[in-house]
């Protein structure tokens, strides 16, 4: 009784999936690679210039801040979301994408005011990133220093 139905169901699923467009995983990965790589190359150029004048750690920190500025500016100009549309994680994973995740919802919810609109929405994604990043780092550091140290 249940057997033929199961087979029919399987056949239906098989038929239905044959009509789905193939998920362009390879294409998406390639676009993410190219755009993400390009953003990191820009950062490396800035880091190279700053490294001639500043100590290493400071040069790295300043490079990240400049990239955050660029990401925020391009988001404001409406350019970064266009890049993100085809580059996916290639635009989201670099720190410019972190800046994008701050500006984009803040701008969007400006009409809800400057406290619960702009400033609260700035941390819609940045908040979770900071929370889980800090907690992960805390656990990792405790393990590294006090358990395996």
């Amino acid at each position, binding site marked *: 009784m249940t057997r033929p139905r199961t087979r029919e169901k399987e056949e239906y699923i098989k038929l239905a999936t044959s009509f789905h467009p193939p998920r362009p995983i390879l294409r998406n990965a390639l676009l*993410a690679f190219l755009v*993400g790589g390009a953003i990191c190359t820009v950062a490396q150029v800035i*880091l190279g210039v700053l490294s001639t004048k500043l100590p290493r750690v400071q040069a790295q920190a300043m490079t*990240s801040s400049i990239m955050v500025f660029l990401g925020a500016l391009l988001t404001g100009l*409406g350019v970064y979301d266009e890049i993100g549309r085809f580059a996916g994680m290639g635009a989201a994973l670099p720190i410019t*994408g*972190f800046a994008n995740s701050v500006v984009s919802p803040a*701008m969007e919810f400006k009409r809800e005011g400057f406290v619960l609109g702009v400033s609260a929405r700035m941390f819609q994604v940045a908040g979770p990133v900071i929370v889980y*990043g800090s907690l992960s780092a805390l656990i*990792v550091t405790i393990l590294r220093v006090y358990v395996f140290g």
Partner: protein
Amino acid sequence: MTLLYAFLVGGTLCALAQIVLDLTKTNPAFVMVSAVSLGAVLSGLGLYGPLVEFAGAGATTPLLGFGHSLVTGMMEDVVRLGWFGLFTGGLRATASGLMAAIVFGYLMAVLFNPKG
């Protein structure tokens, strides 16, 4: 030469994140959060430091580098201040990036309006 390594390593990390996003059908925010935590773990295992040496901004620009900075800062402060360094090191090491995100993020959100 570091320019090429930055491109290849940064690009590879982004491509891997994209593949995870496509295969798991989660959302970009989830992948970003996971990347920071993964960066912290790789840093603790002593793997991310050498990657930064090798690829420079190619390793520090993706969000995994944020996790690495948090762990590096905490470890430094634990050496300097003892256990209380766990509460000071992470945000000290990442302060400039976070401050930049707050200042420039606020500024751009106030100055510009969404397109469309």
